[in-house]
């Protein structure tokens, strides 16, 4: 194995930010390639954001348009918020990938294609009438680097006598090596990764490393790419960093909350995209004492969690939209029995099964209203992949401190997206209180409020002598918790459950406003639209626009000061990846003529879209004046 050698020096150009999209067939290993590039880039010291995009089918027909899988990364020497608008570089491992993604490439962008896969059959599958790599007109506005990666890798591993299939599978490492050369990062981290991942198959380690190095050296010597680029390290706050995906951060946030609360966590889930990773990760953290339970269905997953909560554990269940629908009745039970419970919804796109691997924010209404009777719950939403850590912690804290269920609305984009994360100082996170009672003073009443501030009931768990009691989904007496059908009691309990949620607003951090606290327009966002909104607002502010950004991480209850803050702006714009769910609440709650900006393409907003909409609104409003 040779170390990376430097060939004849080529000119190097410094750029501030770059967006690369790796695209290929589902079997081409694009997710792995992308995440390796991200890891190396994070360790190198750039700021970055990533966005994987893959089909719902595990192995869609090879070469088909439906089977294209992609991974986009934007990295920069400056602070960035999103995985980028238009890619600068498109790696297209086959004709279908080129077909799907070429329209997104910026003008003069670079296409790196594996010409070996542009066979007659693959061209046909992708709907190309002739080989696009030979179409000069098509590439008039782009820079094409077509490389027969398969042949080059074959040559590099010739003496290993490997089956063609395995050789073909290593071509992604060739592409990765080439990109490493192009952006001046070394291959060492990925070599280490390969060595660990395929530890038991030395021939695969050898083939992948040779492919990686071949790609790197190819860039170094090839004339087709006359220049390489440098993206300098970003200036980031000092501290220790790692790259983190949203689902990973979320799992870690839950474990941290369990420790801070001094409780055992019981996490119960049913496999569902894109939430399953949380269950997978927690299942590997058994030595943290977490009990993970893969239930027989979504309903069992939440009701087992409710049983665990009744028994005094930190109970958490995770799912995606359709699963939340199935859990609705049980969430009502947790509301009614005033038990602490965290329900995670990693949202996907669409109604019914929808688009399982695509992102959307269309479950806000479901989270707020998707139950029978008056059954209010606390709803939170993380803003970025790393924020999933903090908001998972917050969800647990609020559930336990207020004795009620909390829904945490993540989404596919946050769950699978990644960014560098400055590791938190665990000591600075607050301890989490709970309402356990351990001793009987002879007059325990399960539903008697002792904590007037939060309206939290005492939590006496099975096994505690002298505190035996019964609870259930029937309406309960406001003190004893016994079944009570009295009309006034029902009214009082309904108000109590509502007030319990409202009181959470007194136990939330202040809302942060980015920009001035008055101005022409404020963009009000929630959840994963944070990055695109922040990037757009940042750019416009640099150009002198009086625009601010307010981002909600607490959706129910809304912050106490929200209305007041919004009213200081002439216009309120609410971008959401749905048909307008938060915007209706804002209009109803504050009688503000908030302007909706909506899209449901299964993809996140890009900053330019937000920027354009803001400018249109500002222009319309100045024309009107």
């Amino acid at each position, binding site marked *: 194995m040779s170390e990376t050698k430097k060939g004849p020096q080529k000119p190097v150009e410094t750029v501030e930010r770059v967006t690369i999209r790796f695209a290929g067939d589902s079997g081409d290993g694009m997710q792995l390639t992308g995440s390796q590039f991200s890891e190396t880039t994070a360790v190198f010291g750039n700021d970055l954001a990533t966005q994987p995009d893959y089909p719902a089918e595990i192995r869609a027909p090879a070469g088909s348009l439906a089977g294209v899988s992609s991974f986009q990364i934007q990295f920069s020497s400056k602070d960035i918020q999103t995985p980028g608008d238009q890619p600068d570089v498109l790696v297209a491992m086959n004709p279908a990938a080129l077909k799907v993604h070429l329209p997104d490439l910026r003008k003069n962008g670079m296409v790196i294609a594996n010409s070996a896969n542009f066979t007659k059959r693959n061209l046909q599958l992708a709907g190309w009438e002739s080989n696009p790599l030979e179409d000069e007109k098509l590439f008039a506005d782009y820079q094409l680097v077509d490389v027969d990666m398969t042949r080059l890798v074959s040559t590099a591993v010739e003496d290993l006598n490997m089956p063609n299939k395995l050789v073909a599978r290593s071509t992604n490492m060739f592409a990765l090596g080439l990109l490493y050369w192009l952006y001046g990062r070394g291959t060492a*981290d990925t070599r280490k990764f390969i060595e660990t991942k395929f530890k038991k198959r030395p021939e695969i380690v050898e083939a992948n490393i040779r492919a990686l190095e071949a790609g790197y050296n190819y860039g170094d010597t090839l004339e087709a790419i006359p220049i390489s680029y440098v993206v300098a390290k970003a200036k980031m706050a000092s501290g220790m960093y790692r790259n983190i995906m949203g689902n990973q951060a979320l799992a870690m946030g839950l474990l941290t909350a369990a420790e801070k609360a001094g409780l055992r966590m019981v996490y119960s889930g049913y496999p569902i995209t894109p939430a399953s990773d949380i269950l997978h990760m927690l299942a590997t953290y058994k030595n943290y004492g977490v009990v993970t339970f893969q239930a027989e269905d979504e309903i069992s997953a939440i009701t087992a969690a409710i049983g665990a909560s009744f*028994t005094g554990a930190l109970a958490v269940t995770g799912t995606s939209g359709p699963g939340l629908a199935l859990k609705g009745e049980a969430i009502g039970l947790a509301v009614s029995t005033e038990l602490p419970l965290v329900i995670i919804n990693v949202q996907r796109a669409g109604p019914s099964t929808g688009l399982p691997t695509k992102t959307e924010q269309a479950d806000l209404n479901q989270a707020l209203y998707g139950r029978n009777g008056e059954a209010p719950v606390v709803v939170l939403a993380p803003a970025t992949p790393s924020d999933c850590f903090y908001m998972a912690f917050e969800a647990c804290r609020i559930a336990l401190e207020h004795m009620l269920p909390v829904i945490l609305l993540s989404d596919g984009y946050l769950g699978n997206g990644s960014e560098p994360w400055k590791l938190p100082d665990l000591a600075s996170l607050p301890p989490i209180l709970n309402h356990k009672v351990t001793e009987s003073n002879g007059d325990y009443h399960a539903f008697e409020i002792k904590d007037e501030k939060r309206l939290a009931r005492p939590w006496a768990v099975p*096994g505690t002598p002298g505190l035996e009691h019964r609870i259930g989904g029937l309406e309960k007496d406001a003190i004893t918790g016994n079944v009570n059908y009295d009309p006034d009691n029902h009214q009082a309990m309904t108000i109590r459950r509502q007030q319990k949620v409202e009181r959470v607003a007194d136990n939330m951090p202040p809302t942060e406003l980015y920009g001035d606290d008055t101005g022409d327009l404020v963009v009000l966002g929630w959840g994963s639209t944070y990055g695109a909104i922040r990037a757009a607002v940042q750019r416009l502010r640099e150009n002198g626009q009086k625009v601010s950004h307010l981002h909600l991480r607490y959706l129910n209850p809304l912050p106490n000061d929200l209305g007041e803050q919004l009213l200081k702006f002439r216009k309120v714009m609410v971008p959401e990846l749905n048909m307008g769910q938060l915007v209706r609440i804002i209009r109803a709650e504050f009688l503000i003529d908030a302007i909706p900006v909506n899209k449901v393409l299964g993809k996140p907003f890009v900053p330019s879209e937000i920027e354009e909409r803001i400018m249109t609104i500002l222009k319309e409003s100045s024309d009107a004046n």
Partner: protein
Amino acid sequence: MPTDVATPALTRKDFTSDQMVRWCPGCGDYSILAQVQKIFPDMNRPKEEFVFISGIGCSSRFPYYMDTYGFHTIHGRGMSVATGVKLANPGLSVWLVTGDGDGMSIGGNHLIHLLRRNLDINILLFNNRIYGLTKGQYSPTSEKGMVTKSTPFGSLDHPFNPPALALGAAGTFIARTLDVDAKHMQKMIAEAYRHQGTSFLEIYQNCLIFNDNAFTDYSDKETKEDRQLLLEDGQPMIFGKGGNKGIRFDGHRPQVVDLENGKWSVDDLAVHDKSDKLLALMLSDLTYQSEFPTPFGVLYQIEKPCYEKQVYQQIDDAISKMGKGDLEKMLRSGHTWTVD
């Protein structure tokens, strides 16, 4: 399990809550409640360790009447709530009260999965072969042809046979008793308690409002002995007046034989072996066959590791192998880098 700490002896009253029992007068549920409250002091276990979980239905009001920890949950989900209770604290004695509708219709999925996982939970399935609380629709155990409010021309469904269902779901303790047979029920409840693993006790329970006399054959003096096959492990299968009949197997086919006609003797009869799954299946299959008596008692029992014990074993093993989890280490797993 009984604890070592000496606790003052409990009485039936200790297990009686202050709530008025609201079943219809004469309901079979009263007897079940009475037997449970009567026998629980014998378990010699602190009462705070008992938890009663239920779903929805007449039977599911049961937890309100027991002065233990209790949770009246939602329709069909008692099995899963009980699973969560046991997972969070395996030291508790968890009892699940369900009915034929709650446990085998809306909660059927949870029931079979609870059985196959074999958590140490005791299921009391009150089978009255009718929906009572919703006022008289046929249930998954109602006999075919039954005329009810929702089946004015007769039910078309084939009924579930609860013990067979439990066997199919890999249950490890499967028994049946009758609401009015106090002694037998107490014995079955005690055996269910002692069994480590999921205990499935089907209790034939009369609903005098919507399905009265569904089980009279098994309680009526005239018919009882001919219709009931009381199983005892290791004992020949004798039934009938004065023990005048028995069950023998002709290959795999059961047949009723007359012990008084001189052709057959007790030695020809099948001997019950509760660890024999095939036998249990054949016995449970007699349930809806009018030419055979219906089996009562422990049909099947085997030992198998409990799910929750293995869950905590995995946790202990992970801790001894990897060391107790350290959050700082977790955060720093994988690639990290420092910015000065």
